[in-house]
């Protein structure tokens, strides 16, 4: 899967699962501060990512995700194996 495709799917998930405004989503956006996703929302997002991309994200890796770019990078790395 291409990076652009992953980014597009990720944006879709943020809109469909968390109800975010697509206009606010950019690579540098921070989940808690900029997108107002609360701690449970981050968990919901991780579970949606696991389902959508068929990857496993352990808690210790999930703890460090603060921005959209970091989350996309993690998925890209997971898919690259």
């Amino acid at each position, binding site marked *: 899967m291409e990076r652009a495709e992953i980014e597009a799917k990720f944006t879709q998930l943020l809109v469909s699962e968390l109800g975010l405004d697509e206009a606010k989503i950019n690579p540098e956006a921070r989940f808690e501060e900029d997108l107002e996703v*609360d*701690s*449970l929302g*981050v*968990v*919901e997002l*991780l*579970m949606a990512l696991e389902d959508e991309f068929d990857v496993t994200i352990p*808690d210790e890796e999930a703890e460090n995700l603060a921005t959209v770019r970091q989350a996309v990078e993690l998925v890209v790395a997971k898919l690259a194996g």
Partner: protein
Amino acid sequence: MTNAAITGWGKALPPSVLSNEDLESFMDTSDEWITSRTGIKERRISHVETSDMATIAAHRALAAAGLEPHDVDLIIVATCSPDTLIPSAAAYVQAKLGAKNAGAVDLNAACSGFIYSLVFGANMIRGGTHKRVLVIGAEKLHYYMDFTDRTTSVLFGDGAGAVVLEPTDGDEGLLSSELGMDGDASESLCIPGYGTRGDRVADAPSEVGVRMDGPEVFRRAVTMMGGASVRVVEKAGIAFEAVDILIPHQANQRIIDATARKLKLPSERVFMNIGDYGNTSAATIPIALTEALEQGRIRPGANIVFAAFGGGLSWAAAVLRWGQRTEPLGTSDVDFPPADRTTLELLQPNFDFFGLEPQ
């Protein structure tokens, strides 16, 4: 083969209400914060003991089944907040009901306790040793509430619900179940110092309050409740479209929404009353079942999925097919005594022990 069906149901909600606005008056919290994260608007605070609530719910369930207390041969009380450890809450219930022919025992699987007890009770009937089993979920959780911890103290409430199980040779009854435990993760939801492990001299009050890693519990709850719900439906041999209603443990609206998504159920087939009572642990499901019946949301022959998750970390799920009767045979006039104190006066012992109180 003889199965076990629910023939009576009842709930007991204490009259004193603690709203999110009430909490705002003495905690750094807000209605918006609590509602958006949990779906809870208010909860009940009991002025009587766990066994009193359990007994009221039991009287109502027996009346709905057209039975008398002496007809009952087993009482199982699911609770993690019994009046005393010895005797069990079930012992008080047996005495208060006057159920002189019944054995009685408490079962602690925290928030999964009602489904565990339902499955145990049903299998006693299937095994042929018991005929009329009273299964009660009852909790007085406010006893444990440390209002200096705003992440846990807003979540829980008091209440009780009860069902009567009887044998049937029809199509109705318990179709499938799963009882699970992830004991390795027990520290993520616990009351660490309440029990022999605690140091009763040196421990700080916070050691006997609820401790929870919210996001961790949330993630596991969604995974286990959703997964177990899917597995019990498959085990029951029914199609997902044949599920009439999900009656989940009421811990968090977002956990319930996620569980419903795993079953692909639309919201009109999911029962939710968390806004009114918060998390009453083992009592949420029998209270919710009773309200679903009161609201006409259980039709004859309905396939019901129960699912729960809680301290342990325990989980449980079951599929139960309802019988033909959705109306109670009778009603009981047993009720709570009037509350002799205000809600905040009922919480004064918590403020005295843990700290924080209304300004």
